[in-house]
């Protein structure tokens, strides 16, 4: 099982600010600690069981590059790709597909790897090269459901979801458009 956890701020939890600074990873960068990827503000983390945590961190970045919604926090991308770790745990061939695919992204990016490329355009240029590979297809094909099917994310899009329990929209604005 892959778990996403909310980090409790106990003194012994993970890395100190100083350590983070030492690693040069402060800022909007994901931190790798043990078998987990931790958000820079340490509010949440994702533990991996089959994939390398580094791979998971790259998947999170990759997910954002595939569906870039700037106002959506990383957590939603982490939730969306955690299934890749679960699947990798059940199927060695899938683990291979993902590990090799991510290693390939890093190799194409050169020194510093995929996550080290500062501009989205540079990363996307690499993705355009690999978009027909089984690796990219597997990640994107899963992501289009695992990302957009998160109910907690729907308010970002202005979608209200289930409506039966609220009596539908008959009295809740089905025809409230005013600007026409």
């Amino acid at each position: 099982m892959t778990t996403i956890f909310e980090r409790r701020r106990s003194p012994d939890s993970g890395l100190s600010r100083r350590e983070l600074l030492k690693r040069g990873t402060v800022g909007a960068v994901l931190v790798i600690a043990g078998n987990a990827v931790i958000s820079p503000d340490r509010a949440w983390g994702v533990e991996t069981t089959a994939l390398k945590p580094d791979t998971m961190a790259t998947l999170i970045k990759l997910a954002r590059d595939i569906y870039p919604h700037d106002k959506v926090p990383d957590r939603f991308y982490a939730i969306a790709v955690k299934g890749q770790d679960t699947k990798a745990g059940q199927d060695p061939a899938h683990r291979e597909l993902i590990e090799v695919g991510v290693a390939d992204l890093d190799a194409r990016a050169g020194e510093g790897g995929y996550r080290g490329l500062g501009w989205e355009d540079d990363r996307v240029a690499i993705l355009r090269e690999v978009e027909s590979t089984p690796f990219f297809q597997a990640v994107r094909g899963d992501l289009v459901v695992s990302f957009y099917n998160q109910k907690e994310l729907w308010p970002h899009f202005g979608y209200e979801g289930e409506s039966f329990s609220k009596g539908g929209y008959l009295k809740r604005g089905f025809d409230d458009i005013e600007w026409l």
Partner: protein
Amino acid sequence: MAAPYNLNDDSVVVIIGSGAGGGTLGNELAQKGIDVVILEAGARIEYEDFINDEWDSFAQLAWLDHRTTGGGWRVSKDFPNLPAWIVKAVGGTTTHWAGASLRIQEHEFKALSNYGKVEGANLLDWPITLAELEPYYSKAEDKMGVTRTHGIEGLPGNNNFKVFKAGADKLGYKECHTGRMAINSADRDDRMSCQQTGFCFQGCKWGAKWSTLYTEIPKGEATGRLEVRPNSHVVKIEHDASGKVTNVVYADKDGKLQSQKARIICVAGNSIESPRLLLNSASAKFPDGLANSSGQVGKNYMRHTTGSVYAVFEKPVHFYRGTTMAGIIQDEAGHDPSRGFVGGYEMETLALGVPFMAAFLDPGGWGRSFASAMDGYANTAGLWIVGEDMPQEQNAVKLHATLKDQYGMPIPDVWFTDHPNDVAMRNHAYKQGQALYEAVGATRAFPTPPYPSTHNLGTNRMSEKAQDGVVNKWGQTHDIKNLFVSDGSQFTTGAAENPTLTIVSLAIRQADYIADQMNAGSI
């Protein structure tokens, strides 16, 4: 009460499938005092249990048995195992459908005569006319409670409709309204009125939208002459030495094979499963499959020329609120070859939720262009194009050469390529749809490709002559007197209209014919 029939009872009419065609036929026959067994592959899920969630509902209702697809259409690349979006459940695809209920136009019944020969197309005239079908259309509209017929009021327009209508006015379209919908605009037939929930495609939890699940089927059962057997997947139809069909072999809920005898067998499994079943029932006497002396079983697969146009505006639309499809423009539905194609198309309002929008807006799409389109969701309006596509022999439901299903039967392999006429029509419709939204201030428009087929037609087509098709004007197979086809696979041509009203009308008419023939002792 629902009557259980014995497996050896050879006096019953067996219907395969409980959707628009099968469910209606079952009730109509039962009302006439004829004993009917409907075998339905899917489970019985009552409307209270439907789910207001696109993927969860899809998992609950959709037909997900293994299928493959090929040909030039984009669906075969984007959805290689989902050529069609149809249902496996009691009620069939009338659980998912949107309710748009239109009559086929007079000239469309005579497509070959009116359009002339179209190269590469296998056009044919229907062996029936609009005049012959009119009384049945009227009965069907009454039964289904179609708005704007029988004095039933239209539905109120939702936000998506209002944008659509404003655009239609700007373009000078005259025939634009909230549609002829099999959705109650007021309480009727013991069903309540539409609450504008916006989940018509996920099954109407209020029962406001007509579905055989909670209209035809319980009405038939109440006669004591209809048994619906869910989780009963028919794998083969068998016949005797004279060539008359005698029984069906089906897998029951435990996957055990059973045989149900029958006096008459009616196939209504939708246009992929119906021809597949006939082909899978090949025997020494009928080596090419049942009712296939013409070689047309599975051929001429049609799915309407479809596509969508979505558009983003400066201000919110909230198009997902309210009925999914209650809005239509019919001005382009006529036959006007000066547009560069034969036949016509309808434009109908359409809304998807975020999950389906992501899956269908631009399948395979990603990056900023895609994500920013999704960011415009709340300000999006949308319409669906549904037009007449050309029947082509090579567009076909075939048996897969190697892959088999859980019962050892070859799975269906669905082949489709657009005809140039289809492409010309779709491009015209894309242009009109975009112009419509731009006329009301759209900042960006998306000509969206066809989804997996929701309208599946033509694979057991109706023809005057036995050599041209599979069934006669009553849906009775040309080759076997007591074997009928009772679903959309009978369609000779697709016409521009959503098909279900015609499927239901044909089923009512077929019930009259079957009853007459039984009385006369000829079947």
